[in-house]
């Protein structure tokens, strides 16, 4: 084979390989392999996971303040209208000894924690805020979560938005039921009256406009997880 034919054959095969690669991202066979990889990666992430690994925002980092992004899936900012729905409560149920409805007053009586941490969005940005609230592990102790609860589902009044977590991540000391942000009561854009926040999960796992915490024996997907983002989403 002379040089010219050799080079053109090489060029054709490279082009063919390139075109093939352009289509693989939609093939079902590739999707199966990606699903296997996601399961494997979840295993790796779970084995790396430690309650002792804590996040704290870097010393020089500026607080995001008003630049802290917010979103909701409803058409308008979800607002808990007491005249229609009655007083807001946080219902903790499922695999627990004492299913309980917490009012905001009840939550304020539990030990209050404050942490200046990163918020990691799946999009790649991070933002710093001070979150104040109650450790989910304290709430789990208060209601007597059963040992066979391997998962927790965080549900909201934002058009059915929810995300379920593995119990290890939920019981991490930095996983809070947040009622305050940057020293003020949680604002409407950020999930008032209460939300989940933890630096150990990507932003979309942190349900806002919280209404229910359900301890479960199996996982229960989630709003973004069901649309193809990783279910585990740990940091």
């Amino acid at each position, binding site marked *: 084979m002379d*040089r010219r034919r*050799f*080079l053109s054959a*090489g060029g054709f095969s490279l082009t063919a*390989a390139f075109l093939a*690669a352009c289509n693989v*991202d*939609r093939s079902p066979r590739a999707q199966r*392999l*990606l699903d296997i*990889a*996601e399961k*494997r*990666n979840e295993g790796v*992430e779970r084995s*790396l*996971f*430690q309650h002792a*690994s*804590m*996040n704290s925002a*870097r010393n020089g*980092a*500026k*607080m*995001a*303040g*008003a*630049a*802290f*992004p917010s979103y909701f899936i409803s058409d308008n900012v979800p607002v808990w209208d007491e005249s229609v729905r009655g007083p807001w409560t946080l219902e903790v149920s499922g695999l627990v000894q004492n299913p309980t409805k917490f009012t905001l007053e009840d939550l304020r009586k539990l030990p209050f924690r404050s942490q200046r941490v*990163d918020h*990691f*969005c*799946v*999009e*790649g*940005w*991070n*933002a*710093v805020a001070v979150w104040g609230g109650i450790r989910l592990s304290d709430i789990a102790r208060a209601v007597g979560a059963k040992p066979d609860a391997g998962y927790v589902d965080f549900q909201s009044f934002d058009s059915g938005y929810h995300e379920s977590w593995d119990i290890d991540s939920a019981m991490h000391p930095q996983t809070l039921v947040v009622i305050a942000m940057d020293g003020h009561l949680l604002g409407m854009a950020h999930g008032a009256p209460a939300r989940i926040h933890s*630096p*150990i999960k990507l932003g979309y796992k942190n349900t806002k406009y919280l209404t229910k915490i359900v301890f479960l024996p199996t996982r229960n997907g989630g709003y973004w997880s069901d*649309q*193809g*983002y*990783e279910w585990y989403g*740990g*940091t």
Partner: protein
Amino acid sequence: MTARHHWIVRVTHWVNAIALTLMVGSGLRIFNAYPAFARKGEHFCCYPFEHKAIPDVLTFGGWLGGARHWHFAMMWVLVLNGLVYLTFIFLHGEWRDLVPRHGDPRDALAMIKFYLFVTKTHPHQGKHNTLQKETYFFLPILAVVQVLTGLAIWKPVQLGWLTALFGGYVWARYWHFMTMLALVVLSFAHIFMVFAVDPYSLRSMLTGGYREDLSPEARNARPFYHLFPRWRRRATEGE
């Protein structure tokens, strides 16, 4: 015809070429979800194209979630393939062709002079010329940095010590991007030089065979030579 590349080197080379392409494409797709580095509420000093998206044709995976799945699957191919390659060249001795040696700066300078038409004859070389050798030595080091910065932004809490090592999440993400750029630039330089001075090496990376009588040294080959007018070519021909 002499045997140049062991089949393990050839297979890992092409697996790497595909994996790296998909990693860069899916990485750029992920980057486009937030094509900037600044922490929210801050400015970032060192990237002039903040909030300018990468053209879609250069990305892979279709959407953020899809690209993340590709990125986190292909990373294992890249890492395992790289480990096979490095283990092989370590055990089989090929690493000796790539490690920097005393005298390399001098030889590299001689190559640069030749490519810039300062000297007429191709410096004497072994398997690779010195510039080429240093590139092949440097690429795996960049790859290791790329894997570490990648881990640092994948697990910024559970591997927080690693993230801190690179200056925190924002900087780790920046170094992941810049190392990618370095890998892409060196890869394109590599591909360009294959076609510009040593197209016969393509055969050695496919079948393993290489004709020493067609080596760049034997042909006194340098890039852009054929673009020169005939009289200038004659003037730069070797003895």
